[in-house]
């Protein structure tokens, strides 16, 4: 039963208040895109054992979507940020690097 701090409400929300949304920062491929790009967008996921960027919605709270960086192995949460963020923010990348020197944003 995970907890995440909703970046909108500022409260620590329990997993029962949240709805999961899978991997974050996917780039949408629409009509005209190559089969390989579309396949990757729709189906291929990092499935990382380690740092994972993921989408959550504060469904039973403010209703907002937000993004989180979480280690899938230790469950450490490096930070949460609004969904309207095209790539992981610098402060969160720094927080991850501080704890995981070998990690790189791929």
């Amino acid at each position, binding site marked *: *039963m*995970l*907890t*995440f701090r909703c970046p909108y409400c500022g409260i620590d929300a*329990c*997993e029962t208040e949240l*709805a999961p*949304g899978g991997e974050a920062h996917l780039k*949408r*491929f*629409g*009509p*005209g*895109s190559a*089969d390989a790009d*579309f396949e990757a967008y*729709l189906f291929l996921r990092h499935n990382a054992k380690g740092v994972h960027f993921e*989408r959550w*919605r504060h*469904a039973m709270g403010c*209703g*907002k*979507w937000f993004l989180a960086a979480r*280690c899938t192995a*230790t*469950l*450490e*949460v490096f930070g949460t940020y609004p*969904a*309207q963020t095209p790539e992981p923010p610098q402060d969160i990348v720094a927080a991850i690097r501080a*704890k995981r020197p070998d990690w790189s944003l791929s």
Partner: protein
Amino acid sequence: MSLRLPKGGRLIDRDKRVVFSFNGKRLTGFAGDTLASALMGSGQRIMGRSFKYHRPRGVVASGVEEPNALVNLGKGKTHEPNQRATTTEIFQGLQATSQNHWPSLSWDIGEVNALIPRFLPAGFYYKTFIHPRPFWKHVFEPFIRQSAGLGKAPDPKLQDPDRYEQFYAHTDLVIAGGGIAGLQAALEAGRSGAQVILCEQSAHWGGRAPVDGVEIEGQPAEVWIKNAVDTLEKMENIHLRLRCMVAGVYDHGYVLAYERVSDHAPQDDVVRHRLWRIRSRHVIAATGALERPLSFAGNDKPGVMLASAVRDHVVNYGSAPGERVVIVTNNDDAYRTALVLAEAGLTVPCVVDARARAEGALPKAVRARGIRVLAGMGISNIKGLRGVVAAQLCRQDGAGEVIEDVICDAVAMSGGWSPVVHLWSHCGGKLLWEKENSFFRPDPDKPPTDQNGEGFVICAGAANGALHAGQTLEDALNSTRKSLQDLNMPVSDQAFLKVSVPEEEKLEPVWIMPAKAGPKKRAKMWLDFQNDVKVSDVQLAAREGYESVEHTKRYTTLGMATDQGKLSNINGLAVLAGALGAEIPQVGTTTFRPPYAPISMGAIAGEARGALFQPLRRTPIQGWHEDNGAHFEPVGYWRRPYCFPRKGESHRDAVNREILAVRNGVGLLDASTLGKIIVKGPDAGRFLDMLYTNVMSSLKPGKCRYGLMCSENGFLMDDGVVARLDEETFLVHTTTGGADRIHAHMEDWLQCEWWDWKVYTANVTEAFAQIAVVGPKARALLNKIGADIDLSKEALPFMGWAEGRIGGFDARVFRISFSGELSFEIAVPASQGRAFWDKLLEAGAEFGATPYGTEALHVMRAEKGFIMIGDETDGTVIPQDLGLDWAISKKKDDYLGKRAQERSHMADPERWKLVGLETLDGSVLPDGSYALDEGVNENGQGNTQGRVTSTYFSPTLGRGIAMGLVRHGPDRMGEVIAFNTTKPAAKGAAPKTIKARIVSPVFYDPEGEKQNV
């Protein structure tokens, strides 16, 4: 023979007799007894039978770890199987029955299993399943069904009358365990001001320190414990819970605790169990340690117990398993049992110590009482069929040659102690093998981590490996201080308490007794008492190639019973390590999973049962439906009327009557559950163009348009009518079950992909009541109640909408139809829904206005060939499959699902497509039937070429009608194909099929003349 001692028993009150029954026999115990101590005190040695071999078993332990003494408690409604006699406090009138016996506890036919030694070896179930099916069905299954199973399942027809509840709590610290370590931790945390929940699973504080004769600060432990509890009770920040077991530790400091509120004193109006759902910053596991059995031949016979459990029963309850008790050990601690027994006036013929020397303070004290201590010795075998008659002694380093028979009626064994590391391990804490003490203990460098990546569980006292009471309190204080410092809370400067207990010498690990025992002996050494797993089974698994401890567990069922291997795990994996020639840490442990000990299903459900199982959504008109005999069906959280049967009318007759009333007169449908979402903003049209497969931005205010919504995967997920309210406002209607899901879908795309688009959404489903007035007389009815809107065909044509007042109500009228009839769907504010419904009914009487339910709605839409989300779609169907190409824009560059629908599989002409189906004999096709094709597939199954998606009896047409998906269906109009059925065929004959003709899915009014009026 087990017995009650003439005096002693610190937890019982000999002045209060308690009458209970066991297998119908009336027995007496004392207040404070457990069922196990009361049975022992009544001379009842056999308390149950084992799972596989049905061997007679007596109590072996004194707490939740008990594998043998499991009983059925209660009768009828309160019957509950697999209750541990050792943790069941007796009360007046308690009824218990033994388990796993057939036909009786003392004479059991399953005992014969054990006489066929090769019958159920390791991997028995796996090997059996490989046998040919008839052998399994006729030989094994009847036998296993009759003899297997733990306890008797409660009767599913009876409702548990007891109440259960759940509490939520947030706290700084949960301390699991109320022994001296837990109390020490609570005192220190209490002084720091931390909010603490201290849970003790038993009914008493202090753990086993009083039994073990520990002295704290120069006084008996009992005195210190009482003072500690008194102090803690006065602290407002400390919450003490007895009979409350911390069952599991989960992600980010989530803790479940299971409180048995009134099991010990059942009474009305008191909740039985309470499940605590706690969010704690830290957890201190002061969970103690469990004693390990020794593996010698016959170690499962009634009367063989853990040495600590013998001690507990004598000191706490004045009950003893026998009058002549042999002690067998590999450590000093078990000598305490010899001293306790001697003190109680019982005979200890000898202490058998597997170690080469036994010269510590405790062995010396035992010798001083004149008790024989035999070092370097072990037990070769236990004589006796249904109880201990004699222990046959041998040298530990030999193969078991008997040196001496010692007459005795009980054996107290100790193979050392294992810290209870379950709570540490539940959420990922790692363990260290401590060779010099032969146990796994928490690895302080690898704790379970929380959301900050910091350890949040710490073990204290014996659970941390500080087994000796001299170290326990010191370790508990150190652990608590570390925890408080992590939480940025103050720690005290109090000195460590002075604890006096005799020094103990090292134990010698003994995994098999005697060390060189042959195969015959190893087949009589039990590891897992409940599941009947022996040393020979684990060794067989190793020989058959099972190297992983997790695989061995499943293959042998070691540790898979209700006790989850609390006694057997370490011995089992040590035997496995020995058989594999590996070190114990290389073999590792199996995973510790919550709950620590079984918790009741009632506590898990809490109040969520019956009417409170899930929330119920009610339309403003629900009361009328209930008062008028509606037959309801669940649709999401709603309960919608399926039909309104009249007195003596079947549901089917009611549905048929309702349909004909609509087709010939006028019907009223409560459509309030229909999803209603406002989509508003300058970019609303652009947004809806992405959401729907067709174009919505070109819709004119005052008009409605039907649309299809697909997932990005291309599959059809919802449909409905969109009304444009004004230039930048749309009202989106979704299916009843789809409103929340579609609203979330919209928000997902708006917030996460097109967040710069200026669009707002609001789910207003419950803000409006919506009533469909449907049928050729619909307009006459509305004109009768009066409207300031022109409802004529010319002013308000099909697929138009208007706003105004109808019958004095504020209303929006939509000319949309799901039945093919003249139809007005009228939305009014929810608060006026019931009044509007009543008015329509009253005014409609002269037109025969008839309320109708969802089934009539479904049949009428099928008569018109309209698809239904969830019938024609199942998450694998695209709009093109349903002949809905007309609702898919060719002009738009993009919409959700467009790219997916271009994939080769989606564009495959072989995809099954929607058609109508008419049986040749007019009967109704079975729902879900498949259209049969020639030939067989690679698995030898008959090929198929289509399936039925909706099937009904149409009262309008007087015959069965159906819709289905069929390969090349639309090109095969008029062709007859066969559908399978589940009807039984005559023996040897081909299965029965039903023939149906492929037709247009529009069975009724194909030109749409009825709705365009």
